[in-house]
């Protein structure tokens, strides 16, 4: 029988031809993967928006969301504008491409009572204005869910909201600073021209006053964030970049004010320019952080934040946060467990690999505990929610938060430079004062000393690091790595050990058939029986069997039964077959023969999972399953060795398995059976001994280790905690990004150091001139512009 693959017309998910549902819309019979997709297509057709299917080019195949939501959850998202207009602000999950936004906006606009809708392309947040007399909140939410998208209340995280308002504030300050600086330039250039060609004294005075007026808002409004940090640094006696910025710009400003009355040259442009440039750098940095946090939120919002609660009036979807202990929650096969609890009904296999590092699913039955974040595989279970505060997850979260709080601040190159440079400048200024006082007089000495401070702060300093890091962040993003923490690039340059998690990081986290022993001829028929049985199952182990034979020609299986945690059975061509673990087979056919038994114990001891196929009398085959390594793992580890980095494995899995993986990959050191907290402690201990460790992991059990290590990267596994503990996230599950990123980071740091050198080259020329009293605003402006341009050009080299 044929098993041709086709794809659903709506969601493009590949399906088997025989499983497809065929429906007719405007005369054409089309295949669908499910009822839901058909309903969506019908809704789109009825709204006359079929252009959606032409528009979507970058749609990622995958099933839409089919969940209903409780309108009460969204009440806090509504703001009343006036009596007949309300505004609803929500997040929308399930948006895959630009056409999705087009569809949602068009679809909703056609509804009666919708006054306006706009969806942000970057953050997937929607603002909907509507007339409550004409359309209800419920109807609005329904028209979003009918298209296969999921509305989410309160989608913005606190961090993101803070970052957003900070970025906006910086943009206003930077914008203001640049408008005033541009105006200021008109008069400054005139003054420069006057210096060369001669200028009427009254006009010169006028221009100087104007320059004073224009630079004042820049100095006291735009520079406010620097002032705040300046006072903070002064109080804590810790030198920072902001100290240098304020020192340079404010001394330039006061010097110039005094200079107007003394008939000397003014430096208002220097003061305003420093602030403008450094604000630009700060703004770019904030934008990077904001982008990282919203990309992360979009990655995470695919995860359910809802739980299906059983109430007296039936099953309803409610927010996980609103659950109380004692509530009953239903978890269907294939769903993530939303909260810790004890099973009160049902039996299922649970994939706990993200929590324990154990790749094979474990059977959980009535009375067993299940933990939030694990995957329910094949049985419907009902759990009773336990104490919501003291869950296993919350304990790990606390450790992570504590570690993140205690994480030592990075002493970056900027800090190190500042700590040498600022005292040096002050010292030079003092010497200049004494020298000028002895040579000329008190005023001349004072003026020269201040002019040293004036030219001490280069504009280009503000751009030197942010620009290089910005370009590197974008480059990394193209590679498939999202940088959450700007210090990551500097941090990875200092590491000497890379510690990997095993399950899901070095391995695929999905089991595959490693070996099989067939006891009956012909072998290919036996394999085909195993494949046919497993093709009826949704179990993760089943996927492993699909590669064994010909998927196009599976046998017809009737009377298929699934025993969660044990095995499956089915009738093929009149014969009944069993496939499952040892106990399951022994239960069906009695004692195993010694040869099979010995083989079975051998593999189990070596840390493998064994599955057997039998008919009603004998064992036909024995399959050895193992979590296979990622194809690229070996090559990546070799490359890391070439970079003279030590590699470790920190795993929660059994010793035999971990040792075997370590041997296969030639990894230097391995730790097995480590709990999440132990992983973190091992890293801490070695870091205290002076090693710098980068942790790479993907699960909840890696989160504490990710948080304590010097640098950390998480694989995008959908585990919120892991991604939020790490400083960067792999957006593709491909380890090859790692060595590429290490080289990029190395190159970036080199460029950043060169940038600093170019920025300070201005000082190397200008300070001696200031010491001897030969400096002039024209020279300082010219040098400043040159060093800034050099920094920009040098940073752009990274983009190639």
């Amino acid at each position: 029988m044929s098993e041709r693959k086709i794809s659903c017309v709506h969601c493009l998910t590949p399906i088997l031809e025989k499983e497809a549902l065929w429906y007719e819309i405007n005369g054409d019979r089309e295949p669908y993967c499910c009822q839901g997709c058909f309903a969506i297509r019908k809704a789109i057709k009825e709204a006359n928006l079929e252009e959606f299917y032409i528009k979507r080019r970058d749609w990622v195949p995958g099933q839409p969301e089919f969940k209903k939501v409780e309108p009460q959850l969204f009440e806090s998202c509504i703001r009343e504008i006036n009596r007949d207009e309300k505004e609803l602000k929500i997040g929308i999950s399930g948006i895959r491409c630009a056409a999705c936004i087009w569809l949602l906006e068009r679809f909703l606009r056609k509804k009666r009572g919708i006054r306006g809708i706009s969806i942000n392309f970057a953050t997937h947040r929607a603002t909907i204005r509507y007339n409550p007399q004409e359309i209800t909140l419920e109807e609005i939410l329904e028209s979003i869910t009918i298209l296969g998208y999921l509305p989410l209340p309160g989608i913005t995280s606190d961090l993101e909201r803070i970052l957003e308002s900070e970025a906006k504030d910086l943009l206003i300050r930077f914008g203001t600073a640049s408008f005033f600086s541009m105006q200021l330039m008109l008069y400054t250039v005139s003054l420069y021209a006057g210096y060369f060609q001669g200028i009427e004294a009254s006009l010169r005075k006028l221009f100087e006053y104007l320059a004073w007026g224009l630079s004042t808002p820049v100095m006291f409004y735009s520079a406010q964030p620097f002032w705040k940090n300046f006072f903070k640094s002064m109080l804590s006696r810790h030198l920072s970049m902001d100290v240098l910025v304020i020192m340079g710009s404010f001394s330039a400003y006061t010097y110039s004010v005094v200079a107007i009355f003394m008939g000397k040259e003014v430096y208002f442009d220097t003061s305003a320019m420093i602030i403008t440039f450094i604000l630009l750098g700060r703004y770019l940095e904030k934008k990077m952080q904001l982008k990282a946090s919203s990309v992360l939120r979009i990655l995470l919002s695919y995860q359910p934040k809802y739980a299906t609660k059983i109430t007296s009036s039936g099953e309803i979807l409610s927010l996980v946060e609103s659950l109380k202990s004692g509530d009953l929650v239903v978890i269907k096969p294939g769903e993530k467990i939303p909260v810790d609890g004890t099973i009160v009904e049902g039996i299922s296999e649970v994939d706990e690999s993200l929590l324990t590092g154990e790749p094979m699913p474990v059977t959980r039955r009535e009375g067993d505990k299940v933990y939030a974040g694990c995957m329910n595989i094949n049985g419907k279970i009902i759990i009773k929610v336990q104490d919501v505060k003291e869950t296993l997850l919350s304990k790990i979260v606390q450790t992570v938060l504590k570690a993140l709080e205690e994480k030592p601040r990075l002493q970056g190159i900027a800090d190190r430079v500042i700590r040498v440079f600022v005292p040096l400048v002050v010292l030079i200024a003092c010497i200049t004062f004494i020298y000028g006082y002895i040579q000329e007089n008190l005023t001349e000495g004072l003026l020269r000393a201040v002019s040293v401070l004036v030219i001490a702060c280069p504009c280009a300093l503000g751009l030197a690091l942010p620009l290089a890091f910005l370009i590197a962040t974008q480059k990394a993003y193209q590679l498939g790595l999202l940088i959450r923490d700007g210090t990551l690039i500097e941090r990875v340059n200092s590491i000497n050990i890379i510690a990997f998690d095993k399950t899901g990081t070095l391995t695929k986290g999905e089991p595959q058939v490693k070996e099989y022993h067939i006891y009956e001829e012909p072998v290919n028929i036996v394999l085909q029986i195993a494949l046919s049985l497993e093709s009826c199952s949704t179990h993760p182990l089943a996927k492993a069997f699909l590669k064994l034979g010909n998927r196009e020609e599976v046998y017809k299986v009737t009377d298929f039964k699934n025993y969660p945690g044990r095995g499956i059975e089915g009738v093929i061509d009149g014969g009944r077959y069993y496939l499952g673990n040892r106990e399951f087979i022994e239960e069906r056919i009695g004692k195993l023969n010694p040869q099979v038994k010995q083989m079975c114990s051998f593999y189990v001891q070596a840390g493998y999972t064994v599955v057997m196929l039998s008919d009603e009398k004998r064992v036909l085959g024995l399959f050895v399953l193992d979590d296979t390594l990622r194809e690229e793992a070996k090559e990546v580890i070799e490359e890391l060795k070439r970079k003279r980095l030590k590699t470790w494995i920190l795993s929660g899995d059994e010793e035999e398995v971990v040792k075997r993986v370590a041997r296969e990959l030639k990894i230097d050191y391995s730790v097995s059976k480590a709990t999440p907290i132990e992983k973190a402690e091992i890293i801490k201990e070695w870091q205290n001994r002076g090693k710098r460790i980068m942790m790479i992991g993907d699960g909840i059990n890696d989160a504490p280790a990710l948080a304590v290590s010097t640098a950390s990267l998480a694989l995008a596994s959908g585990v919120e905690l892991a991604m939020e503990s790490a400083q960067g996230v792999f957006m593709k599950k491909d380890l090859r990004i790692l060595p590429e990123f290490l080289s990029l980071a190395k190159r970036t740091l080199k460029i950043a150091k060169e940038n600093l050198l170019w920025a300070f080259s201005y000082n190397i020329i200008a300070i001696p001139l200031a010491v001897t009293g030969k400096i002039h605003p024209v020279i300082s402006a010219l040098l400043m512009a040159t060093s800034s341009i050099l920094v920009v050009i040098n940073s752009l080299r990274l983009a190639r």
Partner: protein
Amino acid sequence: MWSLYFLIIISIAMGIGAWLWFLWSIKSGQMDDPEGPKYRMLEDDDEENSS
């Protein structure tokens, strides 16, 4: 000379005008979605606007 003062006043007024316009554009949320316009400009079937 008066023409010079006049020009200075005009240039400052224009500068401040542009600055206020910039502030208004941020406050009214025009800078919130830098991604959107590049897709929206390709949509030519705005029946809502024409009707």
